[in-house]
């Protein structure tokens, strides 16, 4: 157990330290997120009721778009400096290391966006008492997004182009996350029961938790062959 847990913790800590050393990535993701949220009212008009109605979907799409560029680069640095090769030849199962990588990515990419989301929510006229539940939805759905993103980033590793290319793979697969996530927050807004949406989102997370780490590990193995 320890033999698996320690390397995984090391991977998570290394990623967090790297992101603290170069905070530019996180900050640019955050500002991208806020930019999208700023552009929407400028285009749509300042009608508070209208803005509150589209707030859930706007926040979700902003999270998806703002996290994409960072997920795209999830493995590019460690592929270049050889860490990825060391992971492959280490006795720790690659699947577990990838799970650690996913947790680290969630902490680095999604968590800042989730923490910034209430600010956007307030600016869009969401009621204060539902912000906490919205955070739960974003946190769980964000884990799904990271797991899909990790698979895509590993699949495109070493390809000629990335960027748009990852988006073509990630966005169709993350459509269920968007549907359940938005439906959950909208139900919250209208006072309807949102437990069902939360459970569906949770079920999706569990499916991806089984699917994503081994697929990511396999894709990375292909890239290093």
């Amino acid at each position, binding site marked *: 157990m320890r033999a698996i847990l320690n390397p995984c913790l090391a991977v998570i800590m290394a990623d967090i330290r790297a992101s603290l050393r170069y905070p530019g990535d996180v900050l640019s993701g955050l500002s991208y997120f806020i930019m999208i949220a700023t552009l929407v009212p400028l285009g749509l008009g300042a009608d508070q009721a209208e803005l509150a109605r589209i707030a859930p979907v706007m926040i979700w799409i902003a999270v998806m778009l703002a996290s994409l560029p960072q997920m795209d680069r999830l493995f590019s640095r460690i592929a270049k400096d050889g860490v990825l090769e060391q992971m492959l030849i280490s006795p720790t199962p690659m699947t577990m290391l990838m799970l650690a990588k996913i947790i680290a990515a969630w902490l680095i990419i999604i968590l800042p966006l989730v923490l910034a989301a209430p600010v956007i929510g307030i600016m869009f006229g969401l009621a204060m008492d539902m912000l906490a539940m919205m955070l739960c939805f974003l946190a769980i759905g964000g884990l799904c997004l990271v797991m899909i993103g990790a*698979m895509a980033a590993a*699949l*495109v590793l*070493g*390809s*000629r*182009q990335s960027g748009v*290319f990852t988006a*073509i*793979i990630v*966005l*169709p*697969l993350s*459509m*269920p996350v968007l*549907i*359940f996530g938005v*439906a959950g927050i909208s139900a919250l807004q209208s006072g309807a029961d949102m437990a069902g949406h939360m459970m*569906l989102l949770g079920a*999706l997370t569990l*499916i991806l938790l089984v*699917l994503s780490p081994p*697929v990511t590990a*396999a*894709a990375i193995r*292909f*890239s290093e062959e």
Partner: protein
Amino acid sequence: MFDYLANPTRFRKITAALLPVVVMVSAIAFALGLYLAFFASPADYQQGETVRIMYIHVPAAWMAMLTYILMAVAAIFYLVWRHPLADIGARAMALPGAGFALITLLTGSFWGRPIWGTWWVWDARLTSMLILFFLYLGYMALADGFERAERGSKPACLLLLVGVINLPIIKFSVDWWNTLHQGSSVLRLDGPSIDPAMLKPLLVMALAMLSWFIAITILQMSRLIMQRRVSNLEARESWS
């Protein structure tokens, strides 16, 4: 049988014999099917003549789904048994598959304009077909996204499998999200509810599209095999 077919030369010999047959079947079925669909079948009592669009729309939708499943099966063969022809098969089927999805979307849109009064509605089945189209695009982008063509094979096959696991989830989530499209009238437990006079042209058109698809896949596979040979020869040339 698959081991037997694994030899590309043998594959080419068999398919060269098969190709004229499939092309003939396709041509006859298209001629008969289009005749039945446009002249020898009744107009619908509600939809009028526009119902004839269905004879293209429904078989294309079947083919779009069948093609993705066949590609996923090929992906399993490639990833598990490292069967080079399986990868070539998956690549060969992608473009016709995307084409079928596009035809489904376009004909559906032409039909929706007079019947639903709009070119497009954000309905569950329309949206899942659109997502299927995106999945085809993603596969093609990934398979051709690398410097060396073969390097893209394994990631692309893996993506196909992830897509197949995700398809039911996407389908479910989208169904649950919004449904306007009518239910199926052919594949039902209590037998088809569609009129036999309309079922016949539908099935003939499905046969036409299936045989056309087989012919195109054979041609594409032969092209890809030749292309690989050429690039292998070129690589050898540059070494010497």
